[in-house]
């Protein structure tokens, strides 16, 4: 069985995926995770999770291009240009 291991480098920090271990049960998984991701003092805490317990979401519908939901932001440039053209003023760089 595959267990995914997440490690925390310092108290208070977010856990980040470290890798995985293959183990026959939880006790072995804990031992192997400690050995592979905690032995060198690189972690203060580990989360060891059976891979099949993880809920993965990999599809994100965005049929109407509602791009103002996205983290990369609302692309203002194109819309600003159109608005200026309608208003008959040019952008600073175009003068």
């Amino acid at each position, binding site marked *: 069985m595959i267990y995914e291991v997440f490690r925390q480098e310092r108290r208070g920090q977010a856990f980040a995926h470290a890798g995985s271990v293959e183990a026959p049960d939880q*006790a072995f998984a804990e*031992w192997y995770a400690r050995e592979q991701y905690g032995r060198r003092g690189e972690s203060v805490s580990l989360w060891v999770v059976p891979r099949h317990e993880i809920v993965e979401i990999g599809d994100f519908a965005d049929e109407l291009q509602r791009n103002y939901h996205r983290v990369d932001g609302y692309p203002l440039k194109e819309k600003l240009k159109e608005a200026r053209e309608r208003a008959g003023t040019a952008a600073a760089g175009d003068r």
Partner: protein
Amino acid sequence: MSERAQQLLGIADDELVLGWRNSEWTGIAPFLEEDVAFSSIAQNEIGHARALYQLVADELGTTADALAFDRSPEDYRHSRLVELRLVPDWARTIARHVLYEEADAKRLEELKASDESAVAGLAAKIDREEAYHRMHAQMWRERLQDEPRFTDALEELRPLLDESGSPEFAELWEEMTIVRRSVAGATW
């Protein structure tokens, strides 16, 4: 040699020789995770040996390396159990691991009660690592408890705990010290 030195040397020899034998699994253990784990246990045992040799070396005015490598093979004081070459028999290897950790735990309890703070302190340190070895041994014991190859090996190997090393040890000693002996006078 004092009784203290003899006792500590016996434990150090057990840890060193078992470390040598367990390290023979590095790269060929049943699966990758266990390979890393078992190799790590082997390294820990050799680390414990080094610390124990150092305590004795301080008393005898020598070095840990000299005690580990430069005595003649018949002077080592380890148990017969640890010197056996068990590769590629994993069931017997785990049986030895279980038997050794059980005996080692008792011995460490006695050392932790020592009047001498250096000895008691080192034993406590070693015991904190050995706790993980015992967990590992216990997991395997539970997993293999219905496996005749394992249970037979326990019966076969148990009496060897109280036997001392045999002349066959010389072969292992030759192998493990050959590099050190290859250049006379080298201090590495």
